[in-house]
């Protein structure tokens, strides 16, 4: 479908990756960036859900941040 080849022949070929030399690589780069960021949003949402569900310790609601009472 896509004609992504930057070369016409393998003879003396250099850069061969798809869409090389065209602005389309920028598009895929930014999509890749988004693919890294969006999962963090979902991870945070899952964390917050479980944080709300288990907010406090069963024995005491007062957090001591690690110090055993």
């Amino acid at each position, binding site marked *: 479908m896509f004609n992504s080849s930057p070369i016409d022949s393998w003879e003396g070929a250099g850069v061969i990756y798809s869409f090389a030399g065209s602005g389309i*690589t920028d598009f895929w780069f930014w999509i890749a960036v988004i693919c890294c960021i969006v999962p963090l949003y979902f991870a945070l949402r899952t964390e917050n859900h479980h944080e709300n569900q288990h907010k406090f310790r069963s024995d005491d609601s007062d957090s001591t941040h*690690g*110090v055993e009472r």
Partner: protein
Amino acid sequence: MSPEELQAAIAVANEINLEVYYYWCTAVMILIHAGFMMYEMGASRVKHTLAAGTKNILAFAYMIPTFWMFGWWIYLAMTNGFVPDFEAGAAGVPWGENMGPNMQDNASGVFWGAFTLFACTTASIMSGAVIERIRMTAFIILAVILGSVVWILAASWSWHYAGWMVTEWGYHDFGASGLVHMVSGFFALGVLIHLGPRIGKFNADGSANVIRGHSLPMTMVGLMLIVVGFFGFLGGCLIFPGTSVSWYATEWANIYGMPTTLSTICFNTLMGVAGGMIGAYMKTRDPFWMMSGALCGIISVASGMDLYYPGLTFVLAFVGGIVGPISAQLFEKFGIDDAVGAVSVHGTCGILGVLFAGIFLGGYPQFSDSIPTITFGGQFKGMIVMFLLGFVPGFVFGWLFKVLGILRASDGVQEVGMDVEVEAMAYPEDIKTN
């Protein structure tokens, strides 16, 4: 075949051999990550096991694209300090000719791959310290900051022939005691200060309790895998001879252009591992620390292992194996809950590694007369830079995430187990091993 044709054929063979060498170094280095994953899962209690493993795998996964997006560019462009050299960095921009398949470039991909795995190692170093209470999202972002920005900035300054610490001070850090281990260890310390200890670690009077992981055998196997991975890591610190990117036609070199051999690294890697294990065992008689001692040993000698006499390597590593657990006790006394002793193993022993090179490696000629020789002063200043470069970003971002409320899991989640946040259970039978 004419002499010219023969020469051309040899040159092609050398380029291919370089590619093959770093390709397999990278593959072997993945064992470091697998090892850290087992190490940390074993050091976790049952209810936190999968969260520790998932965290480790995600750090690996995030490091790869982010190191491609900006990590490699930082290495090539930032040798002068904080002002980028865009011309030098051009080969590292992710839309450039070198950062993808290129029939004229056999080197960029495998060098990038090896450095990416170094970056993964830095994230793994931090991840052990923070298990059982750090939230996943904060950890991933911290891992990216450490692995794809902070350590590689240190590498650009001190692990590049044009890095300013090399050209100004003659800083020598062959196996990355400072630029990988110190930076990661003290980054972890900065985060730990804000993260706080695990529930139950400290009593009201300030005394510490021992929190045992659920599988020491898993931890020990993990550490042996890390030892295997070190052969890829330290082998990857050499520059292959006889290619367009080599220092020499017939000799291996370190990253600073000083000649060395793969045999040298074999001698001193093994002697370092052994010295550290035996030293830590003598100090603690504890299987966990005996295995961590292997890391203490190798890190304590890594800066100068391209030049040390193997007997000296063994002794220095033995000292590192003793110092590691002592340092861990001290940090605990100051209220720092470092679950696996990462700050001590990597940070403190990293300091030893950098300074030992300054003490024992005087007089060696450099690649160029314009580069100062290795001195204690140069190594000491380098040690300070590595400490600050690791600690300050860890402390600042740890503080920021604490203020944002995304750093530490609530006490309730910790009590139920961090595995609740990955919505999985390591052992469905709900076994209790401690």
